Each structure stands twice: as C-alpha cells, then as structure tokens.
C-alpha cells in the first residue's frame, strides 16, 4: 500500500537502528496486507471495466465507421470530404449512384440542440431556482417528483406525444404544409433536457454556500436580487455543466426526434419550419435496412456523433475542473 512510500521517505533520512520485535510484528501481518492488496486490485479492476467499455465502443465504432474511407476495401474509397461536406443522403442500392453527405445533418443536430438549449435552459434554470430558493417545502415536494417523472418517461413516448400533439400544432401555424420541423425537434428536445438542466442547476444552486446569501441579504438586498446577483453567478459553473450535459442529451436523443423531425434526404434547414435529419435519427432510421457500404456509412455517422460527444465531454471536464478550483 501507499504508506510504504512515506515510510521509506522517513527511513531514508535516518540511519538504521536495531529494533526489537521488528521481524515478528511485520510478518504476522504479511497475509493480511496481501489480502488487502488483492482486494484493492479487484476494486480497481471493476473500475477499469468502464475504461475498457469506452475503449471497446470507441475502437469498434471507429473501426466500422472509417472503413468506407480507407482504400483497403473493395468497392470503397468514398471520399471522406464528400462525406462530411455532402448535402445529400441517398443510399442507393446502386453504389455508383449513392450519395452519403452528412453536413446538413450536422447542421440539423447543432441547430436542434442550440434551439433546445435556448428554450429549455432558461425554463429549466428558473424552475430550479424556484425549487431551490423560492418554493415552500410542500410545493417543492410536488414539483421535484414531477421533474423526476419527466426524466423517467421513455423517449419513445415523447416522440409519440410530439407526433400526436406538437407536430399538428406546428402544422397549423407553420408557413409550410407539414409540422415535422426543426421547431418540433427543438420543442421536444427542450422538454427532454429540462430534467437534466433542472436537477443539475438545482444541485448547483443548493451548493452555493449559505453565507453568500446571508452576506447579500444583510446588505439590504432583496431575495430576488440576491438570487440573480449572487446565487446564480456563484452557481454558474454548475449550471453550465448542466447545460453541457443537456446538449449531450439533445445531440444523442434519437427515438423521440425521429418521429417529429421529418428526416429529409437533403437540405440544410434555413428556417425553424424546415424538416431536419439529425445525426442520431439517420442511424436509427436506416440501421435495420442497411447493408454493406450503406451500413458502414451509418457507422461513420456514428463516428461524427461520437466526436461531438467527446468534444462535449472535454468541455464538461474543463468546466467541472474549473469549478473545483
């Protein structure tokens, strides 16, 4: 175990002396120390399974997803550039006609997440403020389980709800003839990120030390002023972490989005009324139907998605490590 290092540190500074009992005392506990060490290794191994899983998934997705761009494979060598810059997704049975462009999906994913953040984050943060700062205990006791329940509803049901309620409503007000649209995706996603944003913001607000609030109130600031000028700024990095996790959820959400997005086969969305095809739905939509190059291209879409998630995670660990300072 690690104490030993310190023991060495200490013994190095001293000349050796002879101690009675030394050997006996130490050997009795050899067995125990070995067992402790072995069990620690078991704990470590368990913790390492997470690392192994991430590595396996990453390697596997990249292995499958990068194949179409490598010249090694027969009928392949699809240009990576046309993949990431392409504006059309037409996986034809006839490989020569096939077009696999994901740029418009990348835009779709980014727009949709951004919209969800713009709508969902203020509502979420304010709700969190309500629960953490303003609500009487009894009311908080109702709102909080409500938020948890919102988090527990499977995304498929959000999709069914979106298709049954949100899409028709948008259709009525949209200048276009269909309700499947960027806006529908944004709304569904903003609802779905609410629980993430609320729970994490609430936790962040609650961890703001009481003495900040007291300091402000004691200066004659009102409760609301205190919230907006002291509490929220102090909880900033925690809330930001919630937002990043929310973006992660929005980018990664599949089943609900698929039903309300419209999933067109080309076209960068130019307004919120346009249908979009986010990256995730592209994968889920066609995975059952794809073979060969088409299937590999879906994995390649997964690679793009993966890169997004990695970037988000790096951002998140930046934020949290900054918060830890």
């Amino acid at each position, binding site marked *: 175990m690690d104490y030993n290092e310190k023991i060495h540190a200490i013994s190095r500074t001293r000349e050796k002396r002879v101690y009675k009992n030394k050997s006996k005392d130490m050997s009795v506990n050899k067995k125990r120390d070995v067992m402790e060490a072995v069990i620690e290794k078991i704990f470590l191994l368990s913790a390492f399974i997470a690392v192994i899983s991430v590595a396996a998934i990453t390697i596997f997705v990249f292995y499958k997803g990068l194949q179409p761009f490598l010249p090694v494979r027969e009928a392949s060598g699809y240009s990576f550039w046309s993949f990431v810059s392409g504006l059309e997704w037409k996986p034809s049975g006839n490989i020569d006609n096939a077009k696999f462009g994901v740029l418009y999906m990348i835009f779709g994913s980014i727009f949709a997440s951004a919209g969800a953040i713009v709508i969902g984050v203020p*509502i979420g*943060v304010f709700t969190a403020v309500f629960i953490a700062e303003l*609500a009487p205990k009894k009311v908080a006791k109702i709102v909080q389980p409500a938020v948890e329940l919102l988090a527990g509803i499977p995304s498929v049901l959000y999709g069914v709800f979106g298709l049954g309620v949100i899409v028709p409503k948008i259709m009525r007000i949209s200048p276009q003839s269909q309700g499947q649209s960027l806006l529908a995706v944004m709304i569904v996603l903003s609802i779905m990120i609410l629980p993430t944003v609320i729970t994490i913001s609430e936790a962040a607000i609650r961890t703001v030390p009481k003495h900040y609030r007291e300091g402000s109130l004691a200066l004659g600031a009102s409760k609301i002023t205190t919230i907006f000028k002291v509490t929220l700024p102090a909880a900033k990095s925690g809330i930001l972490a919630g937002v990043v996790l929310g973006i992660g959820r929005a980018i990664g959400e599949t089943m609900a989005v698929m039903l309300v997005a419209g999933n067109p086969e080309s076209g960068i969305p130019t307004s919120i009324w346009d249908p979009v095809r986010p990256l995730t739905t592209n994968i889920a939509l066609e995975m059952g139907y794809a073979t060969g190059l088409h299937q590999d291209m879906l994995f390649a879409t997964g690679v793009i998605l993966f890169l997004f998630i990695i970037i988000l995670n790096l951002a998140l660990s930046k934020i949290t490590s900054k918060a830890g300072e």
Partner: protein
Amino acid sequence: MGVLKDNLLKYIIYLSTIVTVGILIYIIGFIFYNGISHINLTFLTSNFDSQTQFIKVESMEGNMRNDIGYIQSLGIVLEQNEEGSTYVASIDSNSTVKNGFNRANKAFSIKRGDEIQGIGDTRIESMSLEEITSLLEGHSNYELRVSRPGDGVYPMIITTLYIVLVSLAIAAPIGILSAIYLTEYAKPGKLLRLIRFATESLAGIPSIIYGLFGMIFFVITLNMGYSIIAGALTLSIILLPVIIRQTEESLKAIPNVYREGSLGLGATQLQTIRKVILPNAIPGILVAVILSIGRIIGESAALLLTAGTVARIPDSLSSGGASLTVKAYHVAKEEGNIAMACAIGTVIILLIFTLNMLAKIISKKLNRAAAK
C-alpha cells in the same frame, strides 16, 4: 433592483415552473387519455400475439337450457362479436372445458374470452350462432380449435423483469465496487482521471451507439443472437455510470469521522469499508439501483438492436424478447397503433412513478434509521 423588476423576475420564475409542471401534466394526460381504454387486468395478464391451439375436451351432461349459444355437452355459452368471431361468454362451474389437453398433451383450460374457431377440421368462422350450436352439440369428445386473443403486455412485463434482473446482476456489483475504488482507494492522478473520464464518456454516449455496439459485438460477433443476455450486457454498460455516480455520492456523504474512527481503532481499510462504510451507503446504493431500473425500463434504441422485438416470455437468457418500451416503439412505428403505444406507456409511467416513490421512501427510511 426595483420592486417592479423584482416582481417581474419572480413571475418569470413562477411561469417557468408552471410551464415545466404543465408540460408534464400534458404529456402524462395525453398518454393516459389515449391508452387508458386498453388497460385492464387482461391487458396485463395476456399474451401480445394471439395463440391458436387444438384442444381435446370430453363431453359432459350440462344443464338443460335452451338459450342460443349454450352448448349443453360442453357446459359453455358462446357468443359472437361484431367481427363474427365466436367466443366463450361463460363457463359452467363443472364444465369439462377446464380440463382440456392440447396436441402435446399439456393441460389446457379454456377460459372466458377464448375464441372457438372450429371443431376437428371444420372451421366455423362463417356460421351463425345457431348453426354452430347445433354443430357442436352432442359429440362424445371434441377437438376444438381455440384461439386465445392477444393484445396484452404480459410477455413484455416478464421480459422487462428479466432484463432488469440480469443487467443489475452484472452492473450493480461492478458499479458499486468501482465506486468504492474511486472514493476509498484512488489517489488523484492520471489513473483516476482516466477512470472518471471513462465513466463520464459512458454517460454521454447516445444509446443508439450502444445499440450498434451491442448488435455487432454481442449479437453477431459473440454469437449471442437477439437475446436477453445480449440486451442485458449492453444495458449494463449503460448503467455503469449511473450506478457508479450515485454510489459515489452516497459514499462521499459518509462523514470522514467514521473512517477515522474505525482506522483509529486499528481496523484495516477493508474492515472499515465492510463494517462502517458500506452499511451507511446502502440507502444511496439502493437508490442507485432503483434509478437504474428506471433507466432500463425507459431504454429503447439499445435494446431494440440487441434483445429484439419479439413479444414472448423468454425461456432462457439466450432467447430474445421485447421490453415494454421496445414494444411501445414497435407498435407505434409498424402499426401506427398509438392507443397501444400509449397503453404500454401508461404502464411504464406508473412503473417509473412507483420506482421513484420507492427510491424516495427507501432513502428517507434508511436515512432516518441511520440518524437514530
């Protein structure tokens, strides 16, 4: 800030909360409203697919009754519905149809609601009730073609249960041990950062990617087929960060004075973990487990590609099956059967609600016990 601005901000906060809660009520209302008509006891207890069998039944001496549809020698009353199917409306208490056998000689008891489609090789679909009555009456023994209607979620409930149990059996020990490592052993450094980064990444990977991975790795490469085990293994990876994070929270919440108290008495690290730390972390661990159950129940994309879509009661870990959520997705997508999807959704939401409440109660109870 002036009083006016104060109040404005306050109203915005209230409004946001109302929007949040309102959305929840709207969604749940929508799902319940569309699904509730399906829900009753048979919905929960019957199969999803209808099932047809040939059932051998002895004849008997039934009551002397003359109503149309009463088959005296079977002791049952038949009725017909709008679609023309003939179904068993009531069964006499001493009826022999309760002691039938199917062609595999397994006991089969005909129940109310079962459809009678024929006798021997004669089909009765296009006949009137009178014709059927006279056709059926007076045989000495029968082989009836019986179809038991489906549209129930029983197999999915069982499948969901299986997947919950198996994934937890895999993920819970690993997750808890990892959390113990991270809080009790790990020293800050590269290794810890790596493990943390890994768990955070796992939490961020969309489930469709897990699905792809599970499908190619477990289903095809490891040759598990669409199966409970492939689904559960995939889910276990998804659950790891949930369990690790939650368990870690509860471990971190244990005051250091307990650790010092124990170590100060000459207990080893392991003894301290076993005797002082784990007993105190149990509420948190239970909550972690319950939250993961919720996650399993809600999962669709990953399970769809690994455990499949079949509505069947799995007979082993290597047979596949659809969970409730997967089935809800499947019926919505394939049949456009929104009512069925919402009915399953209603069951799911009630389950999740119960689980959430359970988590609350458990953590409260155990916290209180700990505080005593």
